């Protein structure tokens, strides 16, 4: 389904979506973040500082609470997320592709009820990148594109005074249907223009992984490469790379105790980070990834080798956040290129 929306009418569309909580990019203290809509919507963001992954996979969430009177059995109360319908506007194609990867992790082998009960109620309205919004964009190197609708329910393309609106999924069609007659049928010149804009977007130069097809095999051959330690030497283990990543899913589970007599607390899931030394440390003190080189290798190989071997796609969507955000200049594109080149 394809439609045309006058840019001036986008707020009317959003107002018509009464069944959904609407989140849009908002500029707060100089940082773009997804926030509940208030006032006129802005879609002139580059990309949000954080991807939308936290909507389905919050940084902290309670699995269940427990209460135990001494000498009695504990009482557990399962806490499932509410079933709020949400529509998220302005999601860039790299982040749409991020959700595809998160969906794989949280449904593969065993379904994660917490992730899925949030995810099934989220509709993503994407915005194509007419030109790469960031200096570190490299989506074309990882099988994506600035106009990809993968993982999105609707894709908007900016045609100056109007949006070309493509419904990708049934959920996306429902959003358009809710707008009644607000969206028009595209004319021939709309189609011609969107084709032109898309062709230019794909042709726009980006940063690049030199040999994307050879990367998984070359990384596999480079497990014992001395380059890992060298490339990780500057790493301070802050973990911002995974915190900002649209596909990093690693988490910790811990008990938080809030009271005694009766003992009360919750079992809580929080994001965790493969760049932290204790991430893999056994209680005996043994650590299979005992230095920052092994931990950088894990981050890079998980994204460009292991995930590829398991799911046939890279677990990186080329958003470039980990590069821009790194305080010591560790650059995943350059790391991959160097290791692959060194492998010969």
């Amino acid at each position: 389904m394809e439609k045309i929306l006058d840019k001036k009418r986008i707020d009317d569309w959003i107002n018509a979506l009464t069944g959904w909580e609407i989140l849009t990019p908002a500029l707060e203290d100089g940082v773009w973040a997804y926030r509940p809509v208030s006032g006129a919507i802005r879609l002139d963001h580059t990309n949000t500082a954080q991807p939308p992954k936290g909507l389905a996979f919050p940084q902290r969430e309670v699995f269940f609470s427990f209460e135990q009177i001494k000498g009695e059995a504990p009482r557990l109360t399962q806490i499932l997320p509410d079933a709020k319908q949400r529509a998220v506007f302005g999601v860039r194609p790299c982040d749409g592709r991020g959700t595809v990867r998160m969906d794989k992790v949280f449904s593969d082998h065993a379904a994660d009820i917490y992730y899925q009960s949030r995810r099934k109620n989220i509709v993503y309205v994407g915005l194509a990148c007419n030109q790469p919004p960031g200096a570190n964009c490299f989506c074309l190197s990882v099988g994506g594109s600035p106009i990809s609708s993968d993982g999105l329910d609707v894709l908007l393309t900016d045609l100056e005074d109007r949006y070309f609106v493509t419904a990708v999924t049934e959920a996306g069609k429902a959003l358009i249907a809710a707008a009644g007659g607000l969206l028009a049928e595209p004319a021939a010149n709309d189609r011609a223009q969107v084709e032109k804009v898309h062709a230019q977007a794909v042709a726009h130069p980006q940063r690049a992984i030199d040999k994307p097809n050879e990367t998984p095999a070359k990384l596999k051959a480079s497990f014992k490469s001395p380059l890992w330690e060298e490339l990780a030497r500057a790493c301070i283990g802050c973990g911002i790379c995974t915190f900002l990543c649209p596909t990093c899913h690693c988490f910790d589970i811990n008990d938080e105790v809030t009271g005694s007599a009766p003992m009360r607390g919750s079992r809580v899931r929080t994001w965790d980070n493969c760049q932290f030394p204790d991430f893999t440390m056994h209680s005996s003190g043994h650590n299979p990834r005992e230095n920052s080189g092994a931990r950088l290798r894990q981050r890079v190989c998980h994204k460009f080798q292991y995930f590829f071997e398991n799911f046939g796609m890279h677990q990186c969507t080329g958003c470039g956040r980990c590069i821009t955000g790194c305080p010591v200049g560790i650059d995943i594109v350059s790391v991959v290129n160097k290791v692959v080149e060194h492998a010969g």
Partner: protein
Amino acid sequence: MPDNIYLPELARVAYIKEEVGGERAIKTFRIEPVNGKTFEHECGQCAMLSLFGRGEMMISIASSPLIKEYKQFSIMRVGRVSTTFHELEVGDIVGIRGPYGNSFPVDDWRGKNLFFIGGGCGLAPIWPVITTAVAQRANFKNITVFYGGRSPRDIMYKTELEKLRGDVDVHLSVDKTEEGWSEFCGFVPANVMDKSPSSENAIAITCGPPIMIKYVIQNLRELGFADDQIYTTIENKMKCGIGKCGRCNVGKDYVCVKGPVFSWAELKELPEEY
């Protein structure tokens, strides 16, 4: 799998036995479901045990799948949860979820000679295979158990091992001998070489400290065991048990899903990151 994979069932501690004392204390716990019903498991699988307010830990199920009334766990006191576990009393309630991981292909081993080689706490993960094989004794040819501890006081399942004799050849060892010890003195791999089992129609299953496993496998290879005749288990830190929390992987495989049981043929293809 239950709807909510993270929500444990409640289980009652029915039996506690101190196996080994001292710094590296090991206790055996038998836990039974509070509601009378729990999940079934296979030899080699693990379960996530909970102490509410403390957290969870992944432990091998040490009892045979043939035993339905309880599940047994032999736990070394080493971390936050295991230390608190050691303070439990009979009747206390814990949480359990599982089972997790793959299992030993015991049914494929019918008609074969089985060699079990354990060290320290590593007897627990292979104990369900030993006891299942003994319960189905006619299905297998010779069954041999090599097991060693640092000293005679570090030998776990002492009574149970003695009971096996007759059905099973048991070869015990200690790293450092003491008065009254009549069996082999030396490391477990050396005891294996001393007895030099034949690799013909045989399967070897080993579990213990990583350094022991390394030399046991080296020695088994020397004795003519092929890579696919040798099985072991590996452990890594785990939080979820279902391939999502991202920390127990060795290369592309999560130990909690594709492991903990690997043949040496499989394991030697994976990067050494365990």
